[in-house]
């Protein structure tokens, strides 16, 4: 009995470690765990893992790739039955990106998000560009301008640094 429990714990530890290594297809410098997309990993039977993931945006086209990558990576570690489930509630927030994840984004030249706006009460209309303090990932200047609220993937906005003149991406808080 004790031995079985120990084995189960080892198996669960391994599944969690392996799942936590899988990277995001569109932000490959981030693991799904650091992105906050990996919600739960559970071993429910012999070599049988259930993984919960949540989409960043509703239309996120990377969900199928994430699923395939999880199945493949866990499969390579010996788990031959991997179920990947979608969790919609609570909705993903950039607040779930871990400190390591934020550091990895910055190191890759992508400015990490600030705190997510709260959606309590009616949502205010914002007619001027959102004022955020975004630091240039190249030169650390805060003299940065928003170019567009929408970038190459749903989660990013495009900025420009007026000190070093480099354009860069920013993961916008949601």
């Amino acid at each position: 009995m004790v031995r079985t429990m120990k084995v189960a714990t080892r198996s669960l530890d391994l599944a969690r470690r392996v799942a936590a290594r899988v990277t995001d297809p569109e932000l490959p410098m981030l693991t799904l765990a650091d992105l906050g997309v990996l919600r739960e990993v559970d071993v429910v039977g012999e070599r049988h893992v259930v993984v919960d993931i949540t989409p960043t945006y509703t239309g996120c086209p990377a969900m199928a790739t994430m699923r395939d990558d999880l199945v493949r990576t866990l499969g390579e570690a010996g788990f031959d039955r991997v179920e990947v489930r979608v969790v919609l509630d609570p909705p993903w927030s950039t607040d779930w990106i871990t400190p390591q994840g934020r550091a990895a984004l910055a190191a890759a030249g992508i400015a990490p998000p600030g705190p997510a706006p709260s959606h309590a009460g009616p949502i205010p209309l914002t007619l001027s560009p959102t004022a955020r303090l975004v630091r240039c990932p190249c030169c650390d200047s805060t003299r940065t301008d928003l170019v567009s609220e929408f970038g190459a993937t749903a989660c990013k906005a495009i900025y420009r640094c007026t000190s070093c003149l480099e354009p860069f991406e920013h993961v916008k808080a949601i």
Partner: protein
Amino acid sequence: MTDPTIDLHDVDSEHDSAYAGLQVNDSHWAFGTSFEDPLAGVDTTVPDDVDAAVLGRYAMALGDDALVLSQRISEWCSRAPDLEDDIALANVALDLLGQARLLLARAAKADPSLAPVLPEGSPVPPEDALAYFRDAHELLNVRLVEAADEDFADAVVRILLFSVWRLEVWQRLVASRDAVLAAVAAKGVKELTYHRDYAARWFVTLALGTTESRGRLEAALLRAWPLWPELWAAHPIDVAASRQGVGVDPSTVRESAEEVLDRVLATAEVARPEVPGLAAVAGRTGRDGLHTEALSRMLAEMQSVARAHPEGAW
């Protein structure tokens, strides 16, 4: 008993850190070969006292609104005034497509009889059957979303009116008794906020820009305005869903949306147009499957590949 972890491989021993194994191999980019369920693992049980047919029809109507507008906005790909707006519009279209996919999947799960029947062995999932195998008269979208844009100003005006409306409704839909609709709304609210602000800023920019940009914006507003009242009608589909606690009757939340719109109009120094709403035809509007000719033409293009290959193989 045998130790089940014995032949599990600890990949950590092969790489120093999670980021060390980033070399791209073929399987990393290999998509699954089969279609997948966007609601896999989500509890789609319909609450006991909720009429599944009412829920299904309501989810389908909301899904159709997003599907048709997404398709129209995506027509701007490579044609927007500049690269940033090309990307912005593609993002808005993608968000709406994601909403459509979940809502149509939810509709088909609640009431499987909604999805068209495809040939035996077809791998097409129910949400795709709904999107690609229904004719115009079977779609329940509001008529605002279906016309083709003549001008970038049309896209701006339409996204503004649509997102002001949908955001107002969805801020209440988060309390739906249907857990799936509530979750889709909670996520959608964040996305729609970006869409509304994007369109509102462009609305003001065009209005206060040059004589040319203002003229074109006002013309676009006149074209879209007759379709605004239909968004707020107490249609039986929305009313029934509201009575069951799964949906929102838009006629009950119109006032606060009009206030939002008034603020945009006031900032842009644009007066509310004085043109009447587009009439119902024999009492029927978009939610009844009554559409303009533009929708049939759009669907003919959007659905052609899927209809030519209903078995999903070519």
